[in-house]
């Protein structure tokens, strides 16, 4: 698509703004749905600050609003966020201090430099998202990669939390998730997130089987469990495989892993 490949700062800012706008609409919907569904205002606010992962937040709140246990909500959100691990490996070079800053602080030998570097690394890890990783991986120059990652990560953190706060206020006035078709937005978001990942038949088979399991079990199982039972759909793609291709997970693999997400980012969206 090439939108993010341009390296001048204004193009980056515009692309980041578009992503923030798209995610902002989802954030408003998330905050409004959570509060209109009966959760206290601080639940979506705290989740957005501390979890900061839209898909997992929506999944967890969706499970709870359906009457599921908090444990099922945590498991569902946690499984969705396992992808953060390969993301972190892929952008490890831009999370935290630059090598320039490292050598500077080493020269200075200062304790403040060490604290600053670690603060950057700890906050940088928190803003690893589909979007910030996609922006970073589209750049080859290390300095531009770093700028793209941090611009997107920090902007999205601010935009997401502001949008959720707006949604919380709106939801408190609505008090009914069915108003304005708000109840259709959660499943729509999750469908839109999953569609770009359904390119292979093995994944489609597993997802279709899992969805059928979950829907079929909903009338009989306590809420929250049917969705976890859907993971049984993974059995359809289980093959005893020879141990090939076991190698270090590097940035090249990560690029491939993320390519669909990066392309779908500005069009289809990722959270």
């Amino acid at each position: 698509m090439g939108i993010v490949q341009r390296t001048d700062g204004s193009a980056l800012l515009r692309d980041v703004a578009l992503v923030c706008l798209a995610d902002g609409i989802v954030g408003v919907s998330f905050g409004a749905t959570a509060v209109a569904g009966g959760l206290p205002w601080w639940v979506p606010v705290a989740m957005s600050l501390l979890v900061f992962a839209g898909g997992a937040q929506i999944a967890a709140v969706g499970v709870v609003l359906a009457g599921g246990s908090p444990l099922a909500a945590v498991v569902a959100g946690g499984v969705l966020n396992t992808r953060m691990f390969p993301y972190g490996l892929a952008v490890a070079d831009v999370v935290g201090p630059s090598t320039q800053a490292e050598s500077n602080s080493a020269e200075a030998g200062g304790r403040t430099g060490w604290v600053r570097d670690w603060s950057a690394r700890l906050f940088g890890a928190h803003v690893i998202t589909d979007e910030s990783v996609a922006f970073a991986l589209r750049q080859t120059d290390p300095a531009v990669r770093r700028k793209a990652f941090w611009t997107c990560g920090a902007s999205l953190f601010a935009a997401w939390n502001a949008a959720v706060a707006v949604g919380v206020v709106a939801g408190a006035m609505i008090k009914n998730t069915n108003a304005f078709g708000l109840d259709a937005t959660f499943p729509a978001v999750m469908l839109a997130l999953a569609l770009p990942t359904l390119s292979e038949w093995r994944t489609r088979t597993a997802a279709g089987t899992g969805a059928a399991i979950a829907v079929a079990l909903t009338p009989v199982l306590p809420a929250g469990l049917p969705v976890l039972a859907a993971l049984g759909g993974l059995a359809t793609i289980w093959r005893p495989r020879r141990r090939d291709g076991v190698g270090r997970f590097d940035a090249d693999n990560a690029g491939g892993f993320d390519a669909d997400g990066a392309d779908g980012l500005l069009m289809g969206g990722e959270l």
Partner: protein
Amino acid sequence: MPLVAILALAGVTYGFRLAGPLCRDRISIPPAATRVFADAATVLLIALAATSALTAGHGFAGWARPAGVLVAGILAARRAPFPVVVIAAAAVTTLLRLAGVH
């Protein structure tokens, strides 16, 4: 949703996030494992989409909601912008309800 559940999800998520930058030079994960993670996430998202579109409580959610989600899915598959997808889901569902379809 109790605070402890939010903290647990936040802790798990941050752990996954921080592990990459900390372990980059010390760890290798097989590509096959990466694919299983990705497939598991997809299976969960589709299952969540299906159950939250079709069911309310232990029963059927009615026609308006799944119809809105279906339209959103078609738009998403055609790579419509994300705001359009979300707003279409809400708009179609609302219009159907106003028309008496529940």
